[in-house]
C-alpha cells in the first residue's frame, strides 16, 4: 500500500482502537460504554447549538495543530504551543483594549497581528537558543510554557485585572471583536473558523509551492544535507519556530477576539497540548489537521455530556493518549491490519 493510504489508515484505525480500549475502561468503572458514547455523539452533534459549539472549539485547535505540524515539518518538536498561545492572547488583549475609536477594518487585523507577533517572539526564544547553544527545544519550550502560565496569572490578578470575582481583563474594544457568522441561542459562531481554515490553506501553499517551504522541509528531512545544499540552518530554525509560534499566537488572539472578548488567564486549558495530538493524527498535513481538529473538538464537546451519564470527562484525554501512542508506534497498527488481510 502506498504511504498516502497508510497516512490515512493508521490514524483512522488508531482512533477506533482507542475508542475500544476506552470502552473497556468505562466498563471497568461500572458504566455502559454504549450509553456513554451515545451521550458523547449527542453532545457534539445532537443539535445546532452542539454543532456550533464543536465548531467554535475546532477553531483554535486547527491553529495549534498547524503550529505543531509546521514545526514537525522543519524537524522541530514545538511543545510550546500552549505558552505561545497564552502570550498571543495577552498581546492581542493589550492591543485590543486600546483599539477604541479605530475602525474594525484596521482594528481587527492589527489585534490579530499583535497576537501573532507575541506568539512568534515567545517561540523565537527557543529557536534562538537551539540555533545558538543547541539547547533542545523540547526542554526550552516546556520551560517557556510554565513561565507564560505564571506571567499570565500574575497579569490577570495584577496589572490587567478588572472588577472583582473571577480574574479577568477589561473587555477589548468593540471594533476589535470578530463579527459573528451565525448566532445560535447564546452561542456566537464567529468568523474565527474561516480564519483558521485560511491559515491552513496558506500553510499548505507555503510548504508545497514556495522556496521557503522547500527549505523548511529540507531542514526537517536532513539538516546536514540541507546545510551542505546551501541552506542557512540557524536562520531557518529561528524562522520556523517563529512561524510556528505565530500560528499558536493567532489561536490565542482569536480566542480573545471571537469568543471571550477579554483575557481570562486560564483560557488555554490544554489547547496547545492538543495541538500535538492533532498534528500527529493529521500527519502534519494542513488538510489532515483540519479534520483531526474537528475530531478532537467533537470528543471534547461530547465529553461534557458524558459527565451526565456518570463517565468523567478525562476519558477523552485517555483516548487522545492512546491514539498518539498508536500513531507513534504505527507499525503496531500496520501489523494488525496486515495480519487481518492475510487471514482473509
Amino acid at each position, binding site marked *: 500500500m502506498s504511504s498516502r493510504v497508510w497516512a490515512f489508515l493508521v490514524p483512522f484505525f488508531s482512533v477506533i482502537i482507542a475508542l475500544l480500549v476506552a470502552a473497556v*475502561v468505562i466498563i471497568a*468503572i*461500572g458504566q455502559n460504554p454504549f450509553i456513554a458514547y451515545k451521550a458523547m455523539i449527542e453532545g457534539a452533534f445532537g443539535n445546532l447549538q452542539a454543532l456550533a459549539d464543536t465548531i467554535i472549539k475546532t477553531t483554535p485547535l486547527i491553529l495549534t495543530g498547524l503550529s505543531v505540524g509546521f514545526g514537525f515539518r522543519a524537524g522541530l*518538536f514545538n*511543545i510550546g504551543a500552549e505558552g505561545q498561545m497564552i502570550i498571543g492572547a495577552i498581546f492581542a488583549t493589550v492591543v485590543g483594549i486600546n483599539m477604541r475609536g479605530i475602525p474594525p477594518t484596521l482594528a481587527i487585523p492589527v489585534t490579530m497581528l499583535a497576537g501573532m507577533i507575541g506568539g512568534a517572539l515567545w517561540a523565537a526564544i527557543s529557536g534562538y*537558543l537551539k540555533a*545558538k*547553544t*543547541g*539547547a*533542545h527545544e*523540547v*526542554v*526550552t519550550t*516546556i*520551560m*517557556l*510554557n*510554565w*513561565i507564560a502560565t*505564571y*506571567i499570565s*496569572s*500574575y497579569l490577570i*490578578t*495584577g496589572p490587567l*485585572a478588572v472588577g472583582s470575582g473571577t480574574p479577568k481583563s477589561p473587555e477589548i474594544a468593540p471594533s476589535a471583536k470578530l463579527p459573528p457568522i451565525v448566532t445560535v441561542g447564546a452561542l456566537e459562531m464567529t468568523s474565527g473558523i474561516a480564519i483558521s481554515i485560511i491559515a491552513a490553506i496558506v500553510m499548505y501553499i507555503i510548504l508545497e509551492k514556495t522556496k521557503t517551504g522547500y527549505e523548511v522541509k529540507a531542514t526537517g528531512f536532513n539538516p546536514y544535507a540541507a546545510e551542505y545544499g546551501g541552506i542557512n540552518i540557524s536562520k531557518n530554525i529561528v524562522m520556523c519556530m517563529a512561524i510556528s509560534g505565530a500560528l499558536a499566537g493567532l489561536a490565542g488572539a482569536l480566542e480573545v477576539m471571537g469568543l471571550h472578548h477579554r483575557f481570562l488567564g486560564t483560557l488555554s486549558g490544554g489547547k496547545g*497540548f492538543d495541538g*500535538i*495530538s492533532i498534528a*500527529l493524527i493529521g500527519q502534519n498535513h494542513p488538510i489532515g489537521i483540519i479534520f483531526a481538529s474537528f475530531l478532537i473538538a467533537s470528543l471534547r464537546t461530547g465529553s461534557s455530556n458524558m459527565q451526565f451519564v456518570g463517565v*468523567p470527562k*478525562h*476519558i*477523552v*484525554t*485517555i*483516548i*487522545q*493518549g*492512546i*491514539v*498518539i*501512542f498508536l*500513531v*507513534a*508506534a*504505527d*507499525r*503496531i497498527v500496520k501489523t494488525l491490519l496486515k495480519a487481518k488481510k492475510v487471514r482473509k
Partner: protein
Amino acid sequence: MKIFEVLWNIFTNPLFYKLTLTASTPLLFASLGGVFSEITGVVNIALEGIMLLGAFSSVVITYYTGSVWLGFLLSIPIGIGFSWFHAWASIKWRGNQIVSATALILIAQGLTGFLMEPIFGQPGQTPYVGRINEVTIPGLSKVPFLGEAIGTISPIVILAFAMVLFAWFLIYKTPLGLRMRAVGENPEAADTLGVNVFKIRYFGVLMSGALASMGGAFLSIGEVGNFRELMTGGRGFIALAAMILGNWNPVGAMWACLLFGMSEALANQLQSSPLLNVSATVKPLFNLFPFVVTLVVVAGLIGRTRPPAADGIPYEKEE
C-alpha cells in the same frame, strides 16, 4: 538593602537546606530514571507522566491498605508496568520515542483524573491518606545547625541520595553498566559482541519507570499525604533538564537537581518571608523561578554536555 537581609536570613536558616533536599528528592529520582533510560539509548520524556501515575497509585494503595510503605513499594511495579509501554513502542516497534512518551504523559493525566471520582468520589484532589514519617538520626540530630537541617528527615530523601551511589556504581563499576553504556553509544558494536541490545534497553527504560514512580510517590505520600490533579507540575521535565545538565551522569544529575531544588526552596522562602511582605498578586511570579533557572542553565551550559551517541535512535537488528 532589605533584599540582602532577607537572603541572609534564608541562607542562614537550617530549614532552608532541609527544604532544598526535600524539593530535590522527587527530581532526583526522576532524573536518575532518565539517566538509566537514555544511557541505553532510549529518550524518555514520559518521566512527568510516570511520576504522576506513581504519585496517584501510591495514594490509592495507601487508601486501600492503610500502609504508606505498601503504597510506596507497590507504586514501583506500577511505574515499571507503565514505562513498559514506552519500551515496547520504542524498542520492539521502533516508534518515535518523543511521540510515544508524549502519549504516556496524556494517558497518565487522563487516567489519574478519570479514576479520582470512581475511587474517591470527588474530583480535583483526594482525601488525606497519611504520609511517611520522618526519622530522627541519633547523634546527628544533636549537632547544631546540621542537626536542625538534616537530623530529622524523611527516609525517602535518604533513599534518593543512596540511589545516586547505587546508580553510579551500577553504571560505571559493573559489567551490566558497561553493557548499558555500550548499547547507548554503539548498539551495532555491542550486538556484534553478543550483548542483547533489546534486553538492555528494556532494562534501562523499566528502571526509569521504577525510579520516576518513586519520585512521584514521594510528592504525594512522602510530603503532603494526598494527591492533587496534575500535582507533578512540570517536575518531570525539570528532572529531564537536570539529567542533560548533569551530562547523563548520576552524580552530575544530583548536583543539577540540588540546584533546582534550591531555586524552588528559595522561591518558596521569598514568598513567605515576613520581611518582604509579598502581596498575593506578585506571588505567581516567584513560582517561575525554577523554570527560569532551568532555561538559563540549559541554554548556557548545554555546549559542555554530550548525549549518548545512539540516544533516541531505534535499533534495527540486521537479519
